[in-house]
């Protein structure tokens, strides 16, 4: 009897969630704010500043979507989530979208019933070593002691990589990035390995960042992107094409400062993006100027990258894989037509 009640409650909850998710756009517009899931704090990607305003590379995606949908980039209710609570927050309907440097994997997409709408950062596992070690390539790391966070995919990637290259290593298991920083600086391990963006942020916090190098080898694929619930394709399209608009804007040279000029004098595709020609906005249930506001919220992809994690910031990430396809990177927005 108990079991039936339990299952019944689950079904009702599931049905209600399903019914609600088919109209996320309406919900968001009625509510007047976008509930966007972010991390509880990750250097460069999402963190509140001294005034409590959220800022960062992932946060910018939320703001762009809010600008497109609600005409106001500040109409975002940021819901901080941890690695353990992020997926339940999304599937229970507590948040409308999740922009929390989440790796796009098969199981997350299919088994957990989410919809990854794109990739806003191509990450991968890398290695950091002290310069004094005199190592210039990860293939020279045979016999090294490696600081590694336990229970993560990085641990498995590392084992695979060293086995493939017939090298031995001694793992030093650690729990958090903060602990890793201390252990690595104290010399408990020769190498620290985690995602390349994390390595860069960690290195930026060192007293002498110049004494450490991030090796060129990237040994895993970590495509990070925003995701929404499965089953509401209209909403998924809005988030997907907002991200695409940011990427395409950089490709076509639309920045937050030349929006008006480009809307008048740009090429046909630029005009279609900015809504002076065609009716793309109408097709996804928004007004004509949706992408214009999204780009105006913080700038195009390149501007966001440069402001939050780029080479002029303390984190100092180079574009690498995250350059436009025209510059040899992987960013490739489908055509707006």
């Amino acid at each position, binding site marked *: 009897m108990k079991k039936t009640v339990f299952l019944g*409650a*689950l079904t*009702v*909850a599931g049905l*209600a*969630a399903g019914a*609600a998710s088919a109209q996320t756009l309406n919900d968001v517009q009625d509510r007047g704010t976008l509930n966007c899931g972010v*991390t*509880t*704090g*990750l*250097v*460069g990607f*999402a*963190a*509140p*500043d*001294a005034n*409590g305003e959220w800022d960062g590379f992932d946060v910018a995606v939320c703001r762009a979507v809010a600008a497109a949908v609600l005409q106001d980039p500040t109409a975002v209710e940021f*819901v*901080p*989530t*941890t690695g*353990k*609570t992020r997926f*339940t*927050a999304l599937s*229970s*309907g*507590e948040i409308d979208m999740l922009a929390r440097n989440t790796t796009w994997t098969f199981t997350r997409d299919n088994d957990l019933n989410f919809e990854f709408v794109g990739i806003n950062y191509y990450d991968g596992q890398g290695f950091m070593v002290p310069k004094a070690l005199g190592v210039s390539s990860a293939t020279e790391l045979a016999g090294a002691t490696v600081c590694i966070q336990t229970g993560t995919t990085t641990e498995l990637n590392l084992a695979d990589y060293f086995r493939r290259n017939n090298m031995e290593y001694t793992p030093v298991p650690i729990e958090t990035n*903060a602990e890793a*920083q*201390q252990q690595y600086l104290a010399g408990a391990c020769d190498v620290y390995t985690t995602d390349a963006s994390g390595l860069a*942020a960690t290195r*930026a*916090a*060192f*007293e002498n960042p110049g004494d450490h190098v991030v090796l060129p080898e990237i040994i895993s694929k970590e495509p990070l992107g925003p995701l929404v619930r499965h089953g509401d394709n209209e909403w998924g399209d809005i988030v997907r094409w907002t991200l695409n608009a940011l990427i395409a804007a950089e490709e076509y040279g639309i920045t937050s400062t030349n929006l008006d000029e480009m809307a008048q004098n740009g090429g046909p595709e630029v005009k279609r993006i900015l809504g002076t020609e065609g009716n793309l906005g109408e097709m996804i249930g928004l007004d004509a100027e949706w992408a214009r506001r999204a780009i105006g919220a913080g700038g195009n992809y390149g501007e966001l990258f440069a402001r939050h994690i780029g080479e002029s*910031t*303390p*984190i100092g990430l180079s574009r690498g894989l995250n350059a436009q396809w025209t510059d040899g990177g992987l960013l490739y927005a489908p055509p707006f037509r």
Partner: protein
Amino acid sequence: MADMHAHSVRFVRETMLPQAEPPTTERGIVKWMRENLFSTIPNGILTLAALWCIWWLISSVLPWFANGIWDAPSIRACREILEGQVGGCFAVLTERWNQLLFGFQYPSELYWRPSLAFLLLFIAIAPVLFRKRFPAQMLVFTAIYPFLAYWLTWGGSILVPVFAALGFVAGYMVYSRLVAQSFAMGFFGGILAALVFWWVIGIVPTEGIIALEPVASRNLGGFMLNLILGTVCVSLSIPFGIALALGRQSDMPAIKWICIIFIEFVRGVPLITLLFVANVVLAYFLPPGTNFDLILRVIIMITMFASAYIAEVIRGGLAALPKGQYEAGDSLGLDYAQSMRLIILPQALKISIPGIVNVAVGLFKDTTLVSIISMFDLVGMIRGPILASTEWNGVYWELLGFAALLFFVVCFGISKYSQWLEQELSTDRR
């Protein structure tokens, strides 16, 4: 007399010797050191080792404090100012102190409200903690305080806490009317009356009537959140714990088994699991859009957890009482409630004080666990937003040291109070 003995006695002291100082080894600091620090060779070695340790600690920590930078925009600026010297970057505390204390979302112009609630807390608990030193009339304020503190912290219309308080008053009035017939009738009648009152009064629109600017629960954070969770959960879990402990000893099988199952279940589950249930699992069962306040969920879970532990501590106190005490109550013709209230519990609780304080201190520190379910308490603020900001990524000692200091002050205070209370209450075994 002197003449008589003049040749039989060789020497007679005629004047008193002036008082001499004791030998240097037998007086003052030297004697004290010989007795206490260097009485034996092993002790001497230990003393020297301890001195060396203290010197080493001071010499390494002192420059860190003395060179500390209190005004800088980021950790890199700190390092530039220090130019390689040892020194703490306390600028993070001067810039982010408000976030550490109140969380990063609490409106800064409203900081006075939780601060005032915190100050009033001392006035409210003073008559409870020091019963003989303060007039009993102050207990009226203690009764009002929870509602006042809620109003100050969360804001909104004053009618909400007033109605909540009136519900309790209504419940109590029904209880006192019915308790003469039977305790159970009074108890459940009281609860029913309060619920009915809240249900009826819920229709009245409260918006905007003598309202403070409302602050949502998710905007609460920092040490304020730890204090709220700590004080609310400790003060709720003591009465629940007493009820559970008495229930476990009850002769009525239903009550006894409910209490046993509750206590054993909750004690068998880690607090972190209960917190995850509060945060994650409940979200699946509630219809989407219902916003069952997260802080309320967490308070319920922590209170459940703490009351199970306190129940066991108090059961220990009850078990330690000689059977004669129970029989004395019966032989005086007191009923169950009277004998518990007048004879058993005062003694049992007195025995249980160290245990209860132990649970309270542990619980207060456990409130930092809420950082794992993405609430920004003091530790959550440090681990999340502050260490993740580009400016302060890498400042660990200063921030965690500050957190440790705040927790130490509170926990040490609780522990000192409990020692004082034990002395105050010790009427036997002097």
